[in-house]
């Protein structure tokens, strides 16, 4: 590609990026303004850098905001491990194995993500409350270890189906059973799908408000999205500055996770077949 074309590409991308990022930039800038100025000045130019929102926001709730960040981090880590293990196993079965009722089971698996959570939540809450799991992370984590995130199962199925069967067959000739094929051949080649699962599980769990609100009743257990809502109240003046500041703070880990994780997204298949 000529350097002119490259320069043009960069220009377009930068412009597009600025347009895409304007809301985010505005939020960052607003977090550095005092509350009563945020809506009076819509521009991006800062005439003074005021970081007090960060300090206030950090200490505004019953625990320092770091406590909620840690809660979210623990939850997210558990969910990632759960999804990676259980979804890859289920995906292998659906993509590579031959079994009775495969199509109907697959349809059921997809069906589970078609019901909105608002009607499931009450019976589910009752179920978990009978198990005494309310106010623990269990209702949020255990389902991940049981492959309830059909999104990732389906994602991995599509990836595995993109891998040529010759690899499996070659391994089978060498005497490998399904377990070995799964662990030694399929998993390593699925790295982009696994990385995608990690990134998305991280981000969605980090931002999942509703389930965390319902199942975590003790404010000590609160996670980031629930804590952020505590800054906002429709009937009195909201601490916008603190809310924006803490939103920026919560955005950072996710952003970093993505920045780092995307390196694994790009590790594709280096060679195919022929070992």
């Amino acid at each position, binding site marked *: 590609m000529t350097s002119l074309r490259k320069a043009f590409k960069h220009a377009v991308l930068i412009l597009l990026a600025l347009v895409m990022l304007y809301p985010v930039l505005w939020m960052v800038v607003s977090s550095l303004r005092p509350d009563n100025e945020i809506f009076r000045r819509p521009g991006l130019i800062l005439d003074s850098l005021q970081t007090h929102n960060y300090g206030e926001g950090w200490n505004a709730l019953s625990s320092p905001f770091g406590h909620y960040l840690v809660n979210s981090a623990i939850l997210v880590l558990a969910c990632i491990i759960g999804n990676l293990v259980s979804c890859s196993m289920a995906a292998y079965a659906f993509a590579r194995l031959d*079994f009775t009722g495969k199509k109907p089971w697959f349809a059921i698996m997809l069906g589970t993500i078609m019901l909105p959570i608002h009607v499931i939540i009450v019976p589910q809450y009752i179920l978990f409350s009978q198990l005494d799991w309310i106010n623990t992370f269990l209702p949020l984590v255990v389902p991940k270890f049981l492959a309830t995130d059909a999104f990732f199962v389906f994602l991995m199925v599509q990836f595995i189906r*993109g891998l040529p069967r010759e690899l499996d067959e070659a391994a089978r000739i060498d005497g490998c059973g399904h377990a070995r094929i799964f662990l030694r051949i399929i998993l390593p080649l699925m790295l982009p799908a696994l990385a995608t699962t990690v990134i998305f599980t991280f981000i969605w769990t980090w931002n999942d408000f509703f389930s965390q609100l319902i199942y975590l009743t003790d404010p000590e257990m609160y996670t980031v999205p629930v804590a952020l809502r505590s800054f906002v109240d429709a009937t009195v003046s909201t601490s916008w500055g603190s809310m924006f500041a803490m939103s920026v703070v919560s955005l950072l880990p996710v952003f970093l996770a993505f920045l780092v994780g995307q390196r694994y997204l790009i590790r594709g298949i280096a060679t195919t077949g022929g070992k």
Partner: protein
Amino acid sequence: MSALGELQRMRRGSGGTLGGRRDNKAAFVFLLPWFAGLLLITAGPVVASFVLGFTDYNLIQPPVFNGLDNFTRMLGDARLHHALGVTLVYVVVSVPLQLAAALGLALLLDRGLRGLAFYRSAFYLPSLLGSSVAIAVLWKQIFGAGGLFNQFLALFGVEGPSWIADPDTALSTLIVLNVWTFGAPMVIFLAGLRQIPAMYYEAAATDGAGKWTQFRKITIPLLSPIVFFNLVLQVIHAFQSFTQAFVVSNGTGGPSDSTLFYTLYLYRRGFANFDMGYASALAWLLLVIIAGFTAVNFWAAKFWVVYDD
């Protein structure tokens, strides 16, 4: 035979086998966590919500069986029909736009340029905010009467209305919001592009194929399972869209019900009106609609999706 020719030998269709018995034992082991989840965690609440659809349930007192009343009520519920219409428009317009943006950016950001990590993160960042509390305010800053978009239009002498407060345009702002958060499908496309072996492109180049032919004959077919995946899931996701409408309209689906998504209506009936029986019935109607669209997607797949197995 050329590399391209080999590719053309690949079978078209939805692939896979119909479900014989060969690997039943192995399948059982691999599917054990999923089966356990299905039985222990998913089945109970799902069946309960189905049963609730035939009851009158106000959450405080026990549910009372009311036969098909909820379903006959749906036929005359004008707000429900309106919500369905709003949601359909949203799905049909925003999903293709979003996927097109995602695919376009993924192709641009796949390889061959410096600073790709930065660009990918920049384009992904908006989808991190998509469901946050801050988005309501941010969206007003852009599409409000005095917002950035109108300031931009003012440069051309056009005076824009308040896009979020006008019932005719409020839905469009949510469509834009959905397209703006194309980061997730973009990432999946990126991963998919990376899984296409470079060797295919090299073989095609040695056969004399140009960039456009390579795109048509290699990228599109090999990416098709991923495009299919994104299509199916974004459609499901769009039908269930809740948080953006909730946050931007302050929970009301306004102005004038123009952003009353199906799940928002369902939520209000269930929680604000203590009408959980009807809400459950609505949820199952939605499931049937989504299942229908998904089935059509799967059926149509055999015309354009290519698998290697």
